[in-house]
């Protein structure tokens, strides 16, 4: 079956989008430049765009997909034919994204992410009709339901038939899902304040004023106006207040658009996340494919009592638009709610509130450990002696030292850990702290290390590795040696949790 014809349009749109900046650079900003890089760059660029254009169109004729016996077959390659076979069982999670482009044409996109070692990791339908997407999702999810599968296969025999049926077919919603979380207005307000990115505008404006001031005084044109502005402090105040309001509104609007419509739900086997106002996305992951959980708190989130919960799964984290991490449940969950959510979604994980703390001696060790960052930074500051913001270099060195020490003390305070039957859970980290929790059978490798310094304090570090792309590594530092050895012994009993495939 061919992909949707609008795939071509979508790819061309993306080609334009990603190359627009270079095009402007080459043909507008450096229009008349005879410098060789720009001169030949223009030809190379045109050639590149042309080649991409032609390949996008031919690729559509070549690329095909089909399924049979719970296996996807993908065919592609213009010169070198390539077909890959992907069994449904290898699919780790399903993402459906509806960007503004898709909204305009009333379609959507669909990605099945897999965890196979190979070039072609995901099955990506860049443009697909909504019904078709739902059918594919149902097809992949229908585990033992042979009936559905048969029906689907018979359908795919003739394409036209499907088109007709789609028209008639109403989407049948899956009813046994429980909704666990939708953000309340209050949460969203908090969220927009924790992503305090908009506050960055204040120092930038201040710095800009500082920088622009001498120039303004020389130019006559704007002098009158700016004099007036700069001389009366209350006018400056108004301007800054205005800027802050604009920035705050912008930040809040951004948060509401991004996280406003959000729904986390689940049934017995899967977790579903629906989100987005402008760019909609839908994400499904099978519960047993989850390798572990992570909870993250930045300084601001801690102040507001919020946390981000992330799922660790072996599928590739699909970071297409950079900001929305599909593996994240919700970035601004109230902590209590986060715990509750974990317990509801994944009852096999038991969150313990009674955790061990580090011995006092570990604090001294943390403070004693040489900080290479500080040494290098101080050496560089000493050599260059920069006068940044009218402050001498050694003050900056001290500031950095202060931050590092604070970070380490906080790390000492935050580090807590517990190992129960088949589960390990720990908190660590300074300014940004994180909790990590996983099951013993999901830990694919474990190591334990001890430096000379740690040896003299009788403590050690433990590292676990979980399957993910790239692998997920977690280290807890400076826990008492006995406990570390205990964790190792705990790991040796891994077999209790693991079943083996019967291979002949």
């Amino acid at each position, binding site marked *: 079956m061919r992909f949707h014809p609008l795939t071509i349009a979508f790819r061309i749109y993306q080609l334009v989008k990603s190359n627009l900046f270079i095009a402007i650079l080459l043909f507008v900003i450096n229009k008349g430049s005879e410098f060789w890089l720009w001169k030949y760059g223009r030809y190379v660029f045109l050639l590149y765009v042309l080649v991409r254009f032609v390949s996008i169109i031919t690729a559509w004729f070549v690329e095909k997909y089909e399924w049979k016996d719970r296996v996807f077959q993908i065919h592609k390659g213009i010169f070198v034919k390539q077909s890959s076979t992907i069994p449904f069982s290898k699919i780790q999670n399903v993402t459906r994204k509806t960007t503004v482009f898709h909204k305009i044409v009333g379609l959507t996109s669909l990605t099945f992410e897999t965890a196979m070692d190979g070039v072609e990791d995901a099955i990506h339908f860049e443009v697909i009709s909504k019904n078709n997407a739902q059918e594919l999702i149902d097809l992949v999810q229908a585990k033992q339901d042979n009936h559905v599968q048969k029906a689907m296969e018979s359908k795919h025999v003739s394409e036209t038939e499907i088109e007709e049926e789609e028209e008639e077919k109403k989407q049948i919603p899956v009813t046994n899902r429980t909704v666990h979380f939708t953000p309340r207005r209050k949460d969203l307000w908090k969220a927009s304040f924790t992503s305090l990115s908009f506050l960055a505008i204040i120092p930038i404006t201040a710095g800009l004023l500082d920088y622009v001031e001498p120039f303004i005084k020389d130019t006559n044109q704007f002098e009158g106006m700016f004099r007036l502005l700069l001389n009366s402090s209350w006018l400056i105040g108004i301007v800054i207040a205005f800027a802050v309001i604009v920035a705050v509104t912008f930040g809040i609007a951004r948060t509401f658009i991004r996280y406003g419509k959000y729904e986390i739900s689940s049934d017995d086997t899967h977790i579903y996340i629906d989100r987005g106002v402008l760019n909609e996305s839908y994400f499904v992951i099978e519960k047993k494919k989850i390798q572990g959980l992570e909870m993250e708190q930045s300084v601001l989130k801690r102040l507001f009592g919020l946390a981000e919960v992330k799922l660790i799964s072996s599928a590739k984290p699909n970071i297409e638009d950079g900001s929305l991490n599909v593996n994240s449940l919700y970035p601004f969950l109230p902590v209590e709610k986060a715990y509750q959510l974990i317990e509801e979604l994944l009852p096999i994980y038991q969150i313990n509130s009674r955790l061990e703390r580090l011995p006092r001696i570990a604090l001294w060790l943390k403070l004693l450990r040489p900080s290479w960052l500080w040494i290098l930074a101080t050496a560089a500051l000493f050599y260059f002696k920069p006068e940044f913001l009218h402050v001498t270099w050694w003050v900056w060195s001290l500031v950095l030292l202060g931050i590092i020490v604070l970070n380490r003390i906080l790390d000492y305070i935050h580090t807590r850990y517990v190992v129960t039957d088949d589960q390990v859970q720990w908190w660590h980290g300074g300014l940004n702290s994180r909790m990590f929790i996983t099951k013993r059978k999901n830990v694919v*490798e*474990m190591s334990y290390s*001890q430096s000379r310094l740690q040896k003299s304090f009788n403590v050690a570090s433990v590292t676990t590795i979980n*399957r993910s792309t*790239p692998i997920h590594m977690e280290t807890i530092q400076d826990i008492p040696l006995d406990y570390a050895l205990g964790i190792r012994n705990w790991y040796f009993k*891994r*077999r209790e949790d*693991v079943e*083996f*495939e019967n291979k002949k």
Partner: protein
Amino acid sequence: MNETKLENALAHSFPKIRRISETIGNIIGLVVIGILFWVYHYFDWPIWVYWVLVGLVILTIIGFIWSIFEPTYLYRSWSYQFDDEYLQLSYGIFQKEWVTVPMTKIQSVTTSQGPIMKRYNVRSIKVETVGSSHAIPALEEDVALALRERLAEFAKLKEVDE
């Protein structure tokens, strides 16, 4: 730290092999630096190049001295052990590492042998897992081959739900 001492040690000839290969490496390094000194004179490069080169010579000499002692320490620090379930490696002079890999998570095993290793009849073994790889630097040939067979045998076993 005695608790990290595992059952098996590396090949006895490991320190010797490592010393030889490190010496060869250092000599090559010195030759390259010598050539650079010549180039420096020939092309009249700026003076800082000279000091960088002098620095490199000093570092190489320190490395040279260290490479006389290091192999023995490294040999003493290395041990490994395997059974039906886990492969364990323990090593490190300043920082002690102790790695545990479930046999079922091993994906491939490779043995390799360079010319010096061939002369002493040893092989190195590299084990690749889902996310990382670990190497045992030198084992007697028969031990290495036997271990490879064992590991390959276990690596066939797969856990449900992968």
